[in-house]
């Protein structure tokens, strides 16, 4: 499989609701591999959602285990198909950036703890766990992409968010 280029806003697909996956067929496994390759190629990237590489399906990958903020508290590499947030609690503000919206970061409020359920594409099994901290933020950010929601839809103040990005690993 291959590293795919990341779509940038205002590409229309980034604002569309993605479709549920019916069966874990080879095309989905290929899609997951593309997402993983693309995530690993992005400097400091901790997640990619299918719409970001031009596929309108509810699939995303997340891995905060190598990042400074997530290495102490994570569930490793996550290959999520049809993910759902079952419950959420707490809230905290983080300054987020997104590969689909380059050269801009903004303050976004997210739940600090979420319980997610998804089909794990690697095992074919349903998985459910509670994530917190940076991993919870990353999952919420990637899952937003599946609903056509960008962090720009959630920024709280523009004046504190105009910074060039550097490496955040």
């Amino acid at each position, binding site marked *: 499989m291959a590293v795919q280029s990341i779509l940038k806003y205002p590409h229309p697909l980034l604002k569309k609701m993605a479709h549920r996956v019916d069966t874990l067929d080879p095309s989905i496994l290929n899609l997951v591999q593309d997402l993983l390759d693309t995530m690993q190629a992005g400097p400091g990237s*901790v997640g990619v959602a299918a719409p970001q590489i031009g596929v309108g399906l509810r699939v995303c990958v997340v891995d905060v285990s190598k990042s400074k903020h997530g290495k102490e508290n994570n569930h490793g590499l996550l290959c999520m198909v049809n993910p759902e947030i079952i419950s959420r609690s707490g809230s905290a503000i983080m300054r*987020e950036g997104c590969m689909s919206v380059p050269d801009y970061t903004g303050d976004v409020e997210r739940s600090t703890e979420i319980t997610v359920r998804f089909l794990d594409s690697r095992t074919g099994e349903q998985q459910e766990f509670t994530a917190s901290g*940076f991993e919870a933020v*990353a999952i919420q950010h990637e899952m937003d992409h599946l609903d056509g929601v960008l962090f720009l839809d959630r920024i709280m103040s523009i004046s504190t968010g105009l910074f060039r990005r550097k490496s955040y690993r």
Partner: protein
Amino acid sequence: MPHRELTYYAVSVVGADRPGIVAGITEALYRLGCNIADSSCAMLAGEFAMILIISHPKPFTKAHLLEELKPVSERLLMTLSVRHLPQGEQERKENTGEICQITVYGADQPGIVYRVTSALAAQQINIMDLQTKLAGSGEAPVYIMLLEATLPDGVSPETVEQLLNGLKEELQVEIGVRIVTPVEL
């Protein structure tokens, strides 16, 4: 963006608040073919203040800009100021260190902003955003300041905290330092 070279101006407009200030000024800019590259507008007490960095493909003169903006600002009873930016000044230059949010609040007294910001300036800490408000009652006014600054390499948030701890005692104010870490997702 077109490939024609751009010229930049800093424009500020301040005056008693009323509806239609932003619409009036930006309509004039739109008619001129100006781009708003960066802007911030705020209501401060009863005054409305607009600060804009605008760009326009060359050639474009300050006289031409004033010709359009002056009548509008006069009609709105606003004070207008326009400055041409020398080449390169439109680019944002920042320290590469940590980003800090600093909150200061306490009983109102002269010199809170001055004392805090001069302590920061002495360490080459660059302020990027600063807002203050006077709150509380008339008998017990409370001064509140929130600022965001980038630290130069080698200056840690702990250093900033220590630096400000002395002031906390002396001015009898609360000072909080928080690191803001942008995350790439």
